[in-house]
């Protein structure tokens, strides 16, 4: 069985990577993918910059999936590894929310950061990358949990770190206080009211064929939760 070596697309004479030194704050050699991306998707790419050696490309949110799919599949790009999906909300309320995707190309040994700006007052909806990378599943669920950004096309978008009925909001938003919105006593009584055994998701209960045995009001509540999504 053969070993997949990173840097295979660079050819056998390519120099091995070294620890970077004296990285400039701005400027510096950009990742060649930024230019090819701007040429291939001129309407989707807004701008690009090199910050501390990393190339950051701002794209329009709605074109995320086709841009990433092209980056993954094109023979000259081959971004086969999704590093991270996250979001950034700035302290200045006038600045938009930024969605961040970090991609790595193992064959070309390149790293690219894609960003999309979202209006915090508008609908926070972004295409899901689950059709492109399996690892996007949980990463997007976490962004939804922490920021409230919905991913259209995600097969199972529900909270992952907080419990499913968590009503205080989305913790990493800047308007969410550090200690939460409720008093400690109220947080505790709500947490204790959650019956740990009842926390099976809809998927699990249908699997267990136990759904029809549940009491009526519980069935209605579970169906309502599913329809309404998260509070």
């Amino acid at each position: 069985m053969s070993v997949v070596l990173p840097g295979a697309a660079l050819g056998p004479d390519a120099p091995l990577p070294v620890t970077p030194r004296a990285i400039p704050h701005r400027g510096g050699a950009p990742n060649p993918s930024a230019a090819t991306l701007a040429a291939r998707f001129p309407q989707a790419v807004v701008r690009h910059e090199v910050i501390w050696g990393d190339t950051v490309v701002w794209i329009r949110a709605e074109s995320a999936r086709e841009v990433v799919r092209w980056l993954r599949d094109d023979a000259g790009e081959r971004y086969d590894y999704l590093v991270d999906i996250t979001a950034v909300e700035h302290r200045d309320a006038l600045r938009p929310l930024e969605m961040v995707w970090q991609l790595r190309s193992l064959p070309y040994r390149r790293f690219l950061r894609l960003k999309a700006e979202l209006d915090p007052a508008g609908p926070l909806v972004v295409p899901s990358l689950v059709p492109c990378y399996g690892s996007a599943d949980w990463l997007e669920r976490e962004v939804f949990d922490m920021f409230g950004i919905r991913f259209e096309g995600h097969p199972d978008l529900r909270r992952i770190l907080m419990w499913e009925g968590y009503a205080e909001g989305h913790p990493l938003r800047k308007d969410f206080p550090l200690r939460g919105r409720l008093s400690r006593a109220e947080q505790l009584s709500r947490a204790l009211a959650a019956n740990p055994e009842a926390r099976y998701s809809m998927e699990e209960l249908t699997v267990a064929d136990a759904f029809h045995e549940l009491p009526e009001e519980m069935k209605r509540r579970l169906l309502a939760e599913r329809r309404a999504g998260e509070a």
Partner: protein
Amino acid sequence: MGLSVPPGRSSVTVDPPAQEGWVTTRLEFLVNWARANSLWPMPFGTACCAIEFMATAASRFDLARFGMERMSFSPRQADVLICAGRVPFKLAPVLRRIYQQMPQPKWVISMGACASTGGMFDNYAVVQGIDTIIPVDVYVPGCPPRPESLMHGIMMLQKKVMAERSLGKQEYEEIVVDPTSKLYIPPSRIDELAEPFGNSVHQTRSAP
């Protein structure tokens, strides 16, 4: 059993000297000695303190000399619940359910700063001390506590176990609450008043 509720009184008092005799005292000592030296811990280990607990159970510090090498991960067979690590709100009902599943006699050691008071995690996600959920017998401070600290806490628990009296619990007095009294405060109001810094939204601490 010596418990009596005199009419018109709202508290129950126990008369210990009427119950102790030589045989029961020796029997009590035997039972307590057996319990204290074979406490079967249930490690409710969540985070870094669980690693230090495992180190305490390993060969350098060796919990087996306390009779505690038989870790019971099923609460049904455990004596001591050692809560090692931070407990977020999502885990709180689980902890309470596990505690309820333990049979009597049971004790709880809260290991580490996070289990005792919430530790460095004073935020939306972490329970500020498991004594808000379950009764705790011994608190072991540290982040994480050294194995010696944990053993000191275990020895304190052993002393507490040895001091238990099966007949005549002088230290427990059951107070039956009178809801019609003018001094009555409902529990939900007590919870509100007991908030040390008011509502968490107020953010009155100097450094958030």
